[in-house]
């Protein structure tokens, strides 16, 4: 077999199939480069495994529940609702709110997007939209402007779309959701996903 760093790490991770593992084991016995790689990966993992994050003090740990409760209560006082009320009615209200947002946004999108092709594209086709060109104000450019952290792993359009989805699924409160939908253009699939979620 040819030398492969990736195969060596997969071997270390224990995710090779039995026949692949057998081949690599034989290869490691004969190849000093790959056996050195294996040793290096093992040492790297050993080194990094010893770093422990700071511990929360016992006092801090004991006060977590009261602090979370207190913040939930403050939030509920601010909005004039109780935690129980929010929990029972939030799904229904968020569904109604989400539907309203989708309807409003559909109007907005149809009005805004130049040409119909953008409306029928799948998420992968975001890649084909103009990104970062001078004067471009297309959806992908907006995605990049809002979500690009400048790190190489975060800038692909698909990743940005996934981040966008994550944001909507997990962290968006009502007002934030409206802002997001108001700011971004989604394709058909995203609208249906949004509708299902809310």
């Amino acid at each position: 077999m040819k030398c492969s760093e990736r195969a060596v790490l997969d071997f270390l991770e224990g995710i090779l199939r039995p026949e692949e593992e057998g081949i690599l084991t034989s290869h490691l016995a004969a190849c000093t480069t790959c056996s050195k790689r294996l040793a290096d990966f093992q040492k790297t993992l050993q080194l990094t495994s010893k770093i422990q994050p700071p511990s929360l003090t016992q006092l801090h740990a004991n006060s977590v529940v009261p602090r979370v409760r207190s913040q939930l209560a403050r939030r509920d006082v601010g909005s004039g609702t109780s935690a129980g009320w929010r929990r029972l009615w939030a799904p229904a209200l968020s569904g109604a709110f989400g539907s309203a947002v989708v309807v409003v946004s559909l109007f907005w999108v149809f009005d805004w997007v130049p040409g119909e092709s953008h409306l029928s594209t799948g998420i992968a086709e975001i890649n084909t939209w103009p990104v970062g060109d001078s004067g471009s104000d297309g959806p992908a450019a907006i995605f990049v402007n809002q979500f690009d952290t400048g790190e190489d792993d975060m800038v692909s359009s698909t990743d940005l779309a996934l981040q966008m989805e994550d944001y909507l699924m997990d962290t968006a409160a009502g007002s934030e959701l409206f802002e997001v939908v108001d700011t971004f253009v989604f394709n058909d699939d995203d609208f249906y996903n949004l509708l299902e979620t809310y």
Partner: protein
Amino acid sequence: MADDTDLLRRFSEGDESAFDSIVKLYHERVFQFVYRVLSDFDDAADIAQETFIRAYDKLGQFKGRAGIYTWLYRIALNLSINCLRKRKLRTMVGLDEAPPAALKSSLGGPESDLDDSTTRGRIERAVAELPTRQRSIFILRQYDGLSHGEIASVVGTSEGAVRAGYFHAIRKLRNSLADLVEMDNSTEEVGFRADEM
């Protein structure tokens, strides 16, 4: 100890103490994950707390097909990414003059010389310098022991992308720590907490 399914059932039936149990059960774990991503104690404590507040409203809708902790990690990671983004913006516009202590070493200055003189500082810096997604994947695999599938759920990507991200993270760490890796006895020299400065 009650399991996730039992806690979710009790919560959906209106038992508020089930939520408190979830906070007690997972808070430390979420805090440590966020701390490793952000390298800042105060931000990590705030985000760990915020994670449970965000989770509260939607916990009743959580189906329990995956562990609660993977869902909590997902919320925590999204909040952490937002925090990093705000931090970066504030640094760019000059609102934040002092970066988090654990990241000082990556930005130069006298503190970095001090940090660089310790093995711990070197390793922390190497992990902190990984790109956010690779760092998240590495942390979830190395420190939290999540499977590739669980990490894919947390990060919102495919298992293949997780394996690739983990591979690139390890390779970068090996290169950053090449001299330590080369030392045969290096593993004997480390084993400390981040708060043991």
